[in-house]
């Protein structure tokens, strides 16, 4: 595993750049644990100070140091994306595997549910949920809701891979070797499916972070938990652009963009590496 990562880092430029970006992002997120301030406390430092040696990213109109505020925001945003991606991957994996391998009536039922989720318009639904739940719409509830809505596309993808795997001859060999169905799926087929799960994991994180930022900017989330979207929301509330406090916008936007790029680069480079065909080519000479 370590050798794999080393090879990737050495021979794949996208992976190396993605790694460096994500290391910086994670480093900043980790710094939140050493923050001198509580994230929700305000009016602790001078207001509207531009970036300087004392306040690297400046301070905002609520008397918060933007650097330390950003450390919390990145941590929460990443954790949010991670939880959404994790839960939705598990859902799409289980549903895709079952639907593809079992087939028949089970497949038809699962896929009709799946298709329903694909056509549901997400954004209005999330806004609606916010108005229904209001204060109960915490960061974690939102993650659960988005995970519940974000699995459908990839479940279909996994199902189609499973269907083609099921017709491969080695599946029959496994059956006649006396392997049970769960065993065949987890041991014979999963190695072909996991790469899809890994690469869609990153994409799904990007998708959920993007949606969360959108909702937060518009104020449809729990604004008391500092997230990147939440920071931009407060900047809007204080008309930061009008009063010339550009750094209040600039740093959250910069870092959320970096996160997108980093995750995207990791997703495509891993996709290339994990692809069974290129994996076999590499095995051919080891």
């Amino acid at each position, binding site marked *: 595993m370590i050798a794999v990562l080393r*090879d990737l880092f050495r021979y794949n430029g996208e992976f190396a750049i993605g790694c460096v970006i994500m290391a910086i992002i994670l480093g900043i997120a980790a710094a939140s644990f050493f923050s001198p301030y509580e994230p929700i406390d305000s009016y602790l430092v001078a207001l509207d100070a531009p970036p300087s040696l004392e306040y690297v990213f400046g301070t905002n109109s609520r008397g918060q140091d933007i650097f330390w505020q950003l450390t919390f925001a990145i941590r929460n945003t990443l954790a949010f994306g991670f939880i959404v991606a994790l839960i939705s991957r598990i859902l799409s994996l289980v549903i895709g595997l079952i639907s593809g391998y079992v087939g028949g009536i089970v497949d038809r039922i699962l896929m009709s549910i799946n298709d329903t989720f694909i056509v549901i318009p997400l954004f209005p639904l999330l806004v609606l949920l916010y108005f229904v739940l209001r204060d109960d719409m915490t960061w974690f509830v939102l993650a659960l809701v988005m995970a519940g809505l974000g699995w459908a596309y990839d479940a279909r993808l996994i199902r189609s891979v499973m269907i083609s795997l099921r017709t491969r001859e080695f599946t029959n060999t496994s059956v006649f070797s006396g392997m049970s169905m769960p065993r065949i799926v987890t041991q014979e087929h999963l190695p072909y499916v996991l790469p899809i799960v890994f690469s869609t994991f990153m994409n799904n994180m990007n998708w959920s972070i993007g949606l969360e930022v959108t909702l937060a900017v518009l104020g449809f989330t729990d604004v008391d938990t500092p997230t990147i979207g939440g920071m931009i929301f407060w900047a809007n509330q204080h008309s930061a652009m009008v009063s010339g406090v550009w750094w209040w916008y600039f740093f959250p936007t910069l870092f959320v963009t970096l996160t997108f790029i980093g995750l995207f680069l990791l997703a495509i480079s891993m996709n290339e590496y994990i692809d069974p065909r290129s994996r076999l*080519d*590499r095995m051919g000479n080891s």
Partner: protein
Amino acid sequence: MTQISASAGHGNAHVLETSDLRAYYRMKYFGIDREVRAVDGISMHVRKHEIYGIAGESSCGKTTFIKAIAAAIRPPLEIVGGQVNYSFIDDDLYALSPARRTAIRWQHLSYILQGSMNVLNPVRRIHKTFEDFAFRHMHLPRAEFDQEVRRHLERLRLPAEILRSYPHELSGGMRQRVCIALATLCKPEFIIADEPTTALDVVVQKDVLAMIRETQHEFGSSMIFVTHDLTVHANIADRLGIMYAGRLVEEGRTADVFANPLHPYTAHLIASLPTIGDRHTRDGLHGTPPNLADPPKGCRFHPRCPLAMEICRHENPALTTLAEDHRVACFAASSDVLPIADGKPNQPEALEVER
């Protein structure tokens, strides 16, 4: 026909000549370099009006060889050394500009491939496919072109109705016949046939082979015919080359090769063909075909060879003419067979040709 007579004055009447042709696959995956020597020093020629058969097992390099002589080289496949000369271009194929190389196709050089479905566009009627492939090369007005196509089909005894059908409406055998018609429409001097009958049922196979033979005869084309099936070669090839692990190990007139195989590999292949009416036990060959990324030193057949001697383990036998029109690369066949003079046949750097 004018083109053929024009090039007939070229002297030696070899339509295709390769000298020491080498084509390797060179791959790089995350720092691991791999070199597969799929075609490793093949010198042969195809005469005018003959069908030259190439036989060999899977991954012996026969498909790569075809790609090399058809100028269908794409990375990771590279021409590492040697030359490919056609009588109709007076030059090394790879010395030509890409535009001229493309111009040669279909007009002088055409193909009959195994998967006829890959050649025929599934959503176009057959006559559209004929237009797509040949109209530009024929330089004829539309009406004359259509007439020429019909005349051509008639000559090949194919019903003209097929022009109106889609590929999926035809059977596999009929599709392959259409491909043959397509390949011979411009009356090319040289046809490359890659396993054209392998995917067909036996009943159909025989007719398609007969058609290929008749067409080739009628148009006076030369042809390279590749298949792993020796019984097909016995029925269609004038001369036969046997490939093993990227090299030509034996070559001769088909009847000579069958009657008097000089290489132990050829001898085994011929002896192991089962026939109806004969239930004598036939033995398989031991061992496995070599890995071309790491071929055995010396003669590449020696680990499986019943006649292997000490010299076979170290030296590479050169393809040597032992009888009239019969060449073989085996030390056991005759003491006239000498090792390949070039001391480092496996050093691609030494063979790098400036292009």
